[in-house]
């Protein structure tokens, strides 16, 4: 019988054939914790009487959720992680280097790896063919200490997308539509596999957007078959030698197959307070927005900033609105500075902040006021997500975000590009 990508990756890792539903113990290639869950992870390691990770060179501490630190408590928590990384010889990604998932994509993730992180969006690296999933502090402490984890091999829902996305429609609109289709618990305990011609034609940055939001349907992983684009991406990151081809067998067994025509996808928006509450943007145009955030592990990459800058060049944000732009990594910021993107956005009225999770997480600046609406390119719009339970959060693509920043109301980007 053929194998899904999950069965293939996990089987290769443990050296025997595996099938969906079985439980196995596997070695872990990379394990990371960030400043939001790192202190609890170190606490659990201490309870386990484990002083240092079994593989410090494959253990990464990443400061990204509230950087630069906004108060003494956060500063002390981050200091705890810095000191521990130094003491144990683990890797440290310092405040300002970028969001954990972007750092993993740029510097670590490769096809066939098992990657665990203390963050639900760890699934992002599935775009590069890694079995990457988020876990809590205790599981991560165990993976750091013992180099292993236990997993149930997930059943898979195949998402097959064919055709061309229309002008003004992006990977974000596609994934919001997919989540609307299968629902926020439609993939609980399962894997998503994104396949078909539309996905093959996507760049890796676009695939990262798709995989990133697999968790919003409850999925354990969101995998994309590796191909020439994956190889080129790895080559551009200096690790072409890590490339391996991982594609599901033609006769792999799927729990469900969803066929999607790319040409039918429109600019899409998720309404407060659930990610699966999606509608075409055109149905909610005119809704007043007081703040726009372009950034996050979903859509804070240089290609996303390029889309926004192209729309905003020579124009200015609406006078009733604030625009905050947070590059996903330092490298994103540097590229954006070198190619003029950042200057274009600042001249258009954006506040550009240091790389990190920024507004998405609600623990730093950019918190909206009571009764305000914020439109963001991030991945969650739950009540209170952006720091104020009395504000409402909308999710959309960088293009929709940029045109909305110009008009002050939710706007369909197709009217502007």
């Amino acid at each position, binding site marked *: 019988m053929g194998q899904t990508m999950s069965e293939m990756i996990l089987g290769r890792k443990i050296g025997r054939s595996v099938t969906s539903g079985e439980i196995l113990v596997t070695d872990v290639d990379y394990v990371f914790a960030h400043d*939001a*869950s790192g202190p609890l992870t170190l606490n659990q390691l201490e309870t*386990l009487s484990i002083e240092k990770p079994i593989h410090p060179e494959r253990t990464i501490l990443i400061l990204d959720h*509230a950087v630069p630190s906004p108060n003494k408590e956060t500063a002390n*928590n981050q200091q705890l992680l810095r000191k521990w990384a130094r003491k144990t010889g683990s890797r440290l990604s310092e405040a300002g280097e970028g969001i954990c998932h972007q750092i993993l994509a740029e510097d670590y993730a490769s096809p066939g790896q098992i990657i665990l992180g203390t963050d639900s969006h760890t699934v992002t690296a599935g775009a590069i063919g890694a079995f990457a999933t988020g876990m809590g502090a*205790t599981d991560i402490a165990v993976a750091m200490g013992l180099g292993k984890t*236990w997993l149930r091999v997930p059943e898979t829902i195949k998402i097959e997308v064919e055709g061309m996305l229309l002008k003004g429609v992006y990977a974000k609109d596609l994934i919001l539509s997919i989540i609307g289709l299968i629902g926020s*618990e439609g993939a609980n305990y399962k894997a998503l596999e994104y396949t078909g011609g539309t996905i093959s034609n996507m760049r890796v940055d676009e695939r990262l957007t798709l995989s990133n939001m697999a968790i919003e349907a409850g999925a354990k992983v969101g995998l994309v078959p590796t191909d020439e684009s994956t190889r080129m991406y790895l080559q551009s990151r200096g690790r072409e030698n890590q490339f391996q081809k991982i594609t599901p067998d033609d006769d792999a067994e799927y729990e469900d197959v969803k066929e999607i025509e790319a040409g039918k996808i429109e600019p899409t928006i998720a309404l407060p307070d659930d990610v699966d509450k999606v509608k075409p943007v055109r149905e909610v145009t005119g809704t007043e927005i007081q703040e726009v955030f372009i950034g996050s592990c979903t859509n804070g990459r240089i290609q996303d900033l390029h889309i926004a800058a192209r729309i905003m060049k020579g124009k200015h944000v609406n006078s009733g609105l604030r625009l905050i732009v947070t590059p996903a990594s330092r490298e994103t910021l540097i590229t954006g500075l070198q190619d003029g993107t950042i200057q274009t956005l600042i001249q258009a009225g954006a506040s550009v902040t240091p790389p990190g999770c920024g507004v998405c997480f609600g623990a730093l600046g950019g918190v909206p006021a009571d009764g305000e609406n914020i439109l963001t390119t991030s991945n969650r719009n739950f*009540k209170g997500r952006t720091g*104020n339970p009395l504000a409402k959060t909308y999710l959309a693509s960088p293009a929709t975000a940029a045109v909305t920043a110009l008009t002050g109301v939710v706007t369909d980007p197709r009217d502007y590009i």
Partner: protein
Amino acid sequence: MKIHGKTWKFGDSITTDHICPGRYFHLRTNLPELAKHTLEDARSDYAPNVKKGDIIVAGRNFGMGSSREHAPVVIKLSGASAVLAKSFARIFYRNSINIGLPVIICDTDKIEDGDTITIDFETGKIVNETNGLILNFPPIPPVMMKILSEGGLVDYIRKHDGLKI
């Protein structure tokens, strides 16, 4: 194992942001203080009034969203002895077992806010003493039940000298 207590009823899609809001990020190493905000964005009357042993009862997909283990940790610290829901988000469910918080899937429509119930893990039955109804629930998967029975993953690993599943 039996758990007996009074219930607090919640709706569908209670997220980790409802349970443990990101805006209390700075309290994440001060767990007793963080627990004072448990479920604050779903029911602000819960944290100030919950009694030790009370039981949380919710609808579909409880705990969706973040992998923050603080979510089940603050629920446990708040005094709750178990969470019952029609379904759970994957990471929350695993985290709860790992820290020794029982999580049970059942038809929670038959339980109202403030009912008194008894959960019996041996028989797989919940007795609602307020309305007299008896509910069945599916067993927790064997691997997870073993972890839960040892009080969580840390104790499991200490007892079994490693990750022997």
